[in-house]
């Protein structure tokens, strides 16, 4: 009997397993899409209650400030040190400003800020919503004719989409200042050359708008959809919530890195 329960490792069973997995992940993907659409549908009603969004911006944005500021500073300082060591061999240490700024504005600023955000705020979103579901707060809202999409999901999603680009901008700006402190303050790169080289290579539209603004907006949408949906879709048990939280961090980090490659190829690939 036991052997039948496990299923013989025949071709049909292997295929059935594969099919079941594929159907399950397709179904999840479809539920995610529907969830996203309903959440977007709930967003316009937030105009009437902006207080909900403000509260969530505080919890995902303001409370993420310390980690963003500190890591931005250190990333910029490391870039300054490493860039200087490489450039000084060619006698090109004046290019340190443009090297640091281009690295941060195009890649590191939006990507590292998004990864930190996924770890700091995305996981918290999933855990919060998952627990709301586990303790049946979402069901009781529906009982009271309060739409959880409008009251719970949409405000968190909108707040995240507002907060992450701002955090990425701060990360980038602080990182450039960190590179400036190390390069100009410790290593003696010329102050004027640092900024003027930077200004002559960094473009407003091609680098700052494309890099920081568009990339971090795209990352913000992806991370927040994943975080809110994982919380909503979590099995209502403590183990389910913990797994959903892990999945949020893993999936949104992978999604950010993959999406970053696609965006970079689209923006800078054909130069």
């Amino acid at each position: 009997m036991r052997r039948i329960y496990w299923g013989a490792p025949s071709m049909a069973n292997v295929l059935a397993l594969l099919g079941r997995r594929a159907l399950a992940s397709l179904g999840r993907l479809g539920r995610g899409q529907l969830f996203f659409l309903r959440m977007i549908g709930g967003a316009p009603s937030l105009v009437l209650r902006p207080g909900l969004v403000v509260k969530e911006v505080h919890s995902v944005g303001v409370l993420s400030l310390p980690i963003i500021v500190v890591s931005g500073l250190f990333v910029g300082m490391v870039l300054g040190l490493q860039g200087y060591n490489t450039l000084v061999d060619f006698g090109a240490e004046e290019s340190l400003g443009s090297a640091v700024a281009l690295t941060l504005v195009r890649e590191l600023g939006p990507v590292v800020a998004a990864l930190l955000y996924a770890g700091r705020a995305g996981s918290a979103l999933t855990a919060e919503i998952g627990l709301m579901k586990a303790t049946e707060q979402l069901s009781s809202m529906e009982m009271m004719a309060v739409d959880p999409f409008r009251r719970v999901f949409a405000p968190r999603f909108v707040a995240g989409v507002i907060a992450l680009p701002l955090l990425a901008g701060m990360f980038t700006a602080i990182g450039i200042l960190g590179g400036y402190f190390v390069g100009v303050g410790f290593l003696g790169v010329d102050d004027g050359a640092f900024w003027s080289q930077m200004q002559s290579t960094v473009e407003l539209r091609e680098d700052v708008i494309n890099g920081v603004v568009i990339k971090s907006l795209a990352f913000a949408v992806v991370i927040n959809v994943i975080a809110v949906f994982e919380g909503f879709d979590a099995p209502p048990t403590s183990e389910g919530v913990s797994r959903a939280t892990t999945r949020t961090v893993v999936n949104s980090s992978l999604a950010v890195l993959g999406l970053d490659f696609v965006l970079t190829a689209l923006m800078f690939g054909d130069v």
Partner: protein
Amino acid sequence: MRNTKILEVGVGVFVALGIAAFIMLALQVTDISRFGDDPGYTVVARFDNIGGLKVRSPVTMAGVRVGRVVGVDVDPEAFVAVVKLRILPRFDQIPEDTSASVLTSGLLGEQYVGLEAGGAPEVLKDGDEIILTQSALVLEQIVGQFLFGKATESE
């Protein structure tokens, strides 16, 4: 109610900091004045060969940047490079017989146009052409000439 107030102030500070970061990125990190048309006047110079000169390469005089290259084209009849130079408006006393040469900053650096002032009393105006020009030194040609010279020497 007090808590809501503190929370709102916190969010307000957060958003203001974010906007300040973007303004800093736009103003300090990029050269926003280049976004539109550079102010100033345009002069034209013709070169046999401009090497690696590109649009927005600097134009310098005595090592100081006085403008930028705004256009690079080939004359369809004479087959020479036509370079448009945008000079900043405060350098409006450049003599008419100034010469322009394509130079390289350092051995491997970027190429730029260096202006050397002449002595004519008339000054360059918008649309004028710089007659005295010197082409870029193309390293391969120099090496080629050197090798060719060596070869003929030893015969």
